[in-house]
């Protein structure tokens, strides 16, 4: 800059300072380059980065409790988890569960909690079916007072109040948000019901329950509220409100019905929410059930990661799983060790092959190369199943050994459905990934170096070890990284030939993805696996140096 101020700026042909002109043309060039790679960039983002990010997110995400039980979650946070379950919690749970059961979301939550404690799944499923009972009983009481209560639309008219009334828009907005978060759909703006503010102030619980019904049946399902029958919760809430409601001076629709009900409030029992739950299932009477929900209610959880390392989230913090359920750390360890063994055996088997390929005349080496590549063109499943035929106790290898008399018929070797089977089959399958990088590196080693070493008096071994081998190390490094990373995530081969002791962590990931549907845990396991690979890669870089890796 100082040069420019002293000597005046150098100008480009069009009169702009040269520096700016250069910067602009460089920027244009960069933009053009970016535009050229943008399809690829977007593809990588969409198909690679985005799925990985969403997987990472899934392993900590736990919105379901808050979405399905919004009011209960607030109450659960207020509860210390030690004292008796407070009445407001029972109450909130009753209304939340009812709405969830109508939307069929309670079973999803049950499935989620069942991952932590067995029995939650059926507890939620069965409770969902029994929640109408108290409301139905109360409706009978209301009907005794006046048959009009049972008519579709009666409650709607009561809640809507006088058309001239102010609306309780705050309540409407809250309930709309709760229902749409639970269902995962937005309520269209065309649905605009909100209870009368006057009625809502007089009968707060009823307005709350009715608005939840209205938001779901009217907003999500698009039903006509003026004709439909409200959820049973509305009558439960009404019974609760009657005990304290004061309708003097109210003159809106059904004011007479309401006044009559308030007058007869002694004949309508106020709901006891604790008793309702105790009646539905004895498990609801246990504090542990509520503690489980409380423990797993935060929006973000470390529970899946704890599960992934054989621990679990409890009310008192992280704790080990019972010993007879600890399996995942063992599998992580086994996956790492066996992948290392497979990588090692690939090096041992692959090195001589690559050496021969690199040092034979072109014509012969091409032929051999086809033999190396041949397995690539065969289905993975076919190759794995072929090993089954070879290795099983009544298989080809055992038959030959027995025929040769090397092994007694009763003592046939067990070579499959264990670690050995997995190692053999996977070494075979991954071998080309080791040979190819080694081969391309060895091809670039000038034969003159070897000749020079020998002419200077080195023995064959010294020549190989001191001259040839160090130059081939980058190939070993590249092959090892390829094979190891592929091996660590292998799934189908261990599943088929691994038996009980040869399965990998990926088999558990597959189980949790497709059978138990515990995607959070599967994501946590996948994340840990990814982290382990990155750490090993980093360690490799520190120890060997990633510059020493060549693919050719």
């Amino acid at each position, binding site marked *: 800059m100082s040069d420019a101020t002293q000597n005046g700026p150098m100008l480009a042909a069009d009169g702009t300072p040269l520096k700016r002109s250069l910067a602009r043309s460089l920027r244009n060039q960069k933009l053009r380059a970016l535009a050229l790679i*943008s*399809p690829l960039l*977007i*593809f990588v983002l969409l198909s690679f980065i985005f799925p990985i990010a969403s997987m990472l997110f899934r392993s900590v995400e736990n919105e379901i409790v808050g979405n399905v039980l919004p009011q209960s979650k607030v109450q659960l946070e207020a509860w210390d988890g030690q004292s008796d379950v407070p009445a407001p919690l029972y109450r909130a749970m009753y209304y939340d569960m009812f709405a969830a059961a109508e*939307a*069929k*979301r309670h*079973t*999803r939550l*049950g*499935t989620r909690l*069942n*991952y932590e404690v*067995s*029995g*939650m*799944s*059926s507890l939620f*499923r069965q409770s969902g079916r029994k929640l109408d009972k108290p409301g139905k009983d109360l409706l009978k009481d209301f009907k005794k007072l006046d048959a009009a209560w049972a008519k579709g639309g009666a409650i709607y008219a009561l809640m809507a109040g006088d058309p001239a009334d102010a609306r309780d828009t705050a309540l409407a907005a809250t309930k709309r948000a709760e229902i749409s978060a639970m269902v995962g759909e937005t309520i269209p703006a065309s649905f605009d019901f909100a209870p009368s503010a006057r009625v809502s102030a007089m009968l707060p619980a009823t307005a709350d329950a009715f608005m939840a019904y209205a938001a779901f049946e009217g907003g999500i399902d698009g039903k006509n509220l003026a004709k439909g029958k409200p959820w049973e919760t509305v009558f439960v809430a009404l019974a609760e409100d009657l005990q304290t409601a004061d309708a003097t001076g109210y003159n809106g629709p059904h004011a007479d019905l309401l006044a009559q009900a308030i007058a007869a409030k002694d004949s309508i029992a106020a709901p006891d929410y604790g008793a309702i739950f105790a009646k539905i299932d004895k498990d609801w009477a246990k504090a542990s059930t509520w503690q489980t929900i409380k423990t797993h209610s935060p929006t973000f959880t470390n529970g899946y990661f704890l599960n992934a390392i054989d621990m679990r989230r409890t009310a008192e913090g992280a704790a080990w*799983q019972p010993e*007879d*359920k*600890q*399996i995942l750390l*063992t*599998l992580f360890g086994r996956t790492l060790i066996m992948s290392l063994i497979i990588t090692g055996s690939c090096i041992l088997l692959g090195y001589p092959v690559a050496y021969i390929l690199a040092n034979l005349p072109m014509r012969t080496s091409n032929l051999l190369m086809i033999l190396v590549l041949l397995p690539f063109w065969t289905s993975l499943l076919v190759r794995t199943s072929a090993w089954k035929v070879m290795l*099983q*106790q*009544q*298989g080809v290898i055992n038959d030959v050994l027995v025929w040769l008399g090397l092994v007694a018929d009763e003592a046939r070797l067990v070579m499959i*459905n264990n670690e050995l089977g997995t190692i053999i089959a996977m070494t075979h399958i991954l071998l080309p990934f080791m040979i190819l990088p080694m081969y391309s590196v060895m091809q670039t080693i000038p034969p003159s170096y070897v000749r020079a070493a020998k002419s200077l008096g080195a023995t064959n071994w010294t020549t190989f070890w001191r001259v040839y081998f160090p130059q081939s190390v980058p190939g070993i490094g590249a092959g090892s990284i390829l094979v190891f990373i592929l091996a660590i995530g292998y799934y189908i081969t261990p*599943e*088929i030939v691994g*038996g*009980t*002791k040869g*399965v990998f962590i990926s088999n*558990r990931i597959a*189980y949790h*993805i*497709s059978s*138990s*549907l*515990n995607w959070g845990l599967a994501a946590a396991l996948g994340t840990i696996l990814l982290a382990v690979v990155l750490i090993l890669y980093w360690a490799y870089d520190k120890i060997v140096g990633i510059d020493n890796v060549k693919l050719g």
Partner: protein
Amino acid sequence: MKFTTTLLAGTALTVAGAAFADEMTIVSWGGAYSKSQLKAYHEPYSAKTGVTIINDDSSAEAVAKLRAMNEAGNVTWDVVDVVASDAIRLCDEGLAMEIDADTQLAPAPDGTPASEDFGELRVSDCFIPQIVYSITFGYRTDLVGDKAPTDICAVFDLKAYPGKRSLEKRPINNMEWALLCDGVAKGDVYDVLATAEGQDRALAKLDTIKDSVVWWSAGADTPQLLADGEVIMGSTYNGRLFSVIEEQKQPVAMLWDAQVFDLDGWIIPAGLSEERKQRALDYIYFATDTQRLADQAKYISYGPARKSSAPLVGKHADLGIDMAPHMPTDPNNAKNTFLYNYEFWADYRDDIDAKFQAWLAK
């Protein structure tokens, strides 16, 4: 950017086009089972309506895939064949639609409403059962010695029947059999299994044969292991054993004792467009009527789920043998059956599976 937009728009068009064309995607298990459905249901339905049916052999991952499709908001399947326990889960998760048996399914020829005709086999409101199958044992007649096993506990009797046996690599069924053979009464099995002691007891019983077990994970494993003489007995689906015995003529026989009944049937995914939903319902109405269910038994040895179909079961389409005696529901075979408890496994599956896998790895 423009290129990608065009690409996305193109994909959207293709998807929309597929949805409006006169074709539907039906998901099933593949192999001989899909073939039996093709012959008994798909071909007559296509002939009747002109709808092209596309088969997708993805039933093994149906629950996971339907969940992913639901999350993505693009369900591409119209009708899905799943086992009963998966149907219950799909129903629980709101991924399958509920079906009213009496209004949406065909009544029996004598007018009995469908709900009665299926009876208690309709284990979920979303589920229309098709077949009753069983998981049971087959044994090598030439390798078990002179005393053919007639009792499920032969599996646990290494003295009388030395040699390897194959069991499925999951706790379901194995735990029940272990408890039955450890002296637990049939009616108490699930009560016992619900306790930690009961689970330990079942694993301890399995431990006595652990070294002699080959664990399978695909239905084709046991038939192959039996055919190769790798095991002397093994559990699998009864239809697989039927084909080993009758079609491949291997020296294998069935052990029907304590066979575990299970169900397989249709569900319709939730969230289909009205048009696709109607077509799926129309297909289901056709494919689950009395005659169609009986027809399927001509091609595979699984029992039809309707009571009214049982008398119509005829001979095998190719082999010409009478199919009734090969049905798991045949009175001779069903003398001692074990009923699978869906609710129990829905609750305890994850817990017991973790213990089972930990035990396997020991």
